[in-house]
């Protein structure tokens, strides 16, 4: 009985971990063991072969991320699988829906809050806060 219990705890524990991992993982993450990673130079070479100018190579969400310009001079941010060097995600910085920028370039955009504030007791019902970044 005790053995069963221990086994059951272990299995549910594992299952719990598994689902947690699933919940945390993004679609655009890479999961490649460190041993299979290609060196930075390979990423640099791959980028140059595409005609890109590389400003920076870093790692993000388990992928390599290349920041720079493409052959046409557009600002790009490309996520690359560290094992195969396949492109996971490619973003142009002038895209509206770019997903990985905290607003470094576009930090002065208008606040997006449109609906009513939460009824947390701090705000006066019906009132709406406004914010400006200057």
């Amino acid at each position, binding site marked *: 009985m005790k053995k069963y219990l221990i086994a059951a705890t272990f299995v549910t524990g594992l299952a719990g971990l598994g689902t947690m991992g699933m919940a945390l993982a*993004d679609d655009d993450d890479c999961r490649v063991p460190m041993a299979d990673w290609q060196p930075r130079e390979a990423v640099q070479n791959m980028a140059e072969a595409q005609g890109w100018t590389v400003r920076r190579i870093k790692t993000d969400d388990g992928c390599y991320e290349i920041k720079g310009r493409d052959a046409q001079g557009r600002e790009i941010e490309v996520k690359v699988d560290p094992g195969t060097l396949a492109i996971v995600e490619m973003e142009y910085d002038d895209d509206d829906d770019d*997903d990985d*920028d*905290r*607003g*470094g370039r*576009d*930090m*002065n*955009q*208008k*606040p*997006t*809050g*449109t*609906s*009513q*504030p*939460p*009824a*947390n*007791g*701090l*705000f*006066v*019902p*019906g*009132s*709406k*806060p*406004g*914010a*400006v*970044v*200057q």
Partner: protein
Amino acid sequence: MKTLLYALALSTALTVPAMARPVTLTTNMNSYGGDGAYLALYVTDAQGAYQGSLWMAGGKSKYYTHLSDWYRATQGNPAEINGITGASVGAGRQLKITLDLADALFDAGYELHIDVSAEDMRDSPSEVVVSLTTQGAGQPVPGRRYIRDFTYDM
């Protein structure tokens, strides 16, 4: 908290102007030399228990874990910041928020916290913690890392 809510719901229905006061929250950022920072402005009671959020500067929820005190209190629940989310704030810039705050928040031991985070830089939870008092209004409070000073005016 619940009593405060009930009291508010009851009394604001009758006398809105008496219970509210317009407040301006001004946050001046340092020139920390990084990308735009995420800021969470929220209120706790004197014991540090989370009461609610006032503003979230920064729109991408995947970065909210870096606002660690706020995230611990809310588990990143988007309902906490619906309608009070705006753009991130760049280095050297100023975030000015105008809002009508419940009167009951002042001189009652409540504290306003600001968590700050910027990409590839250290997280700074509760960088600013100020007691909400009528006397404290208009007095700039310095931040630790990213915030030069914070002031609330009414």
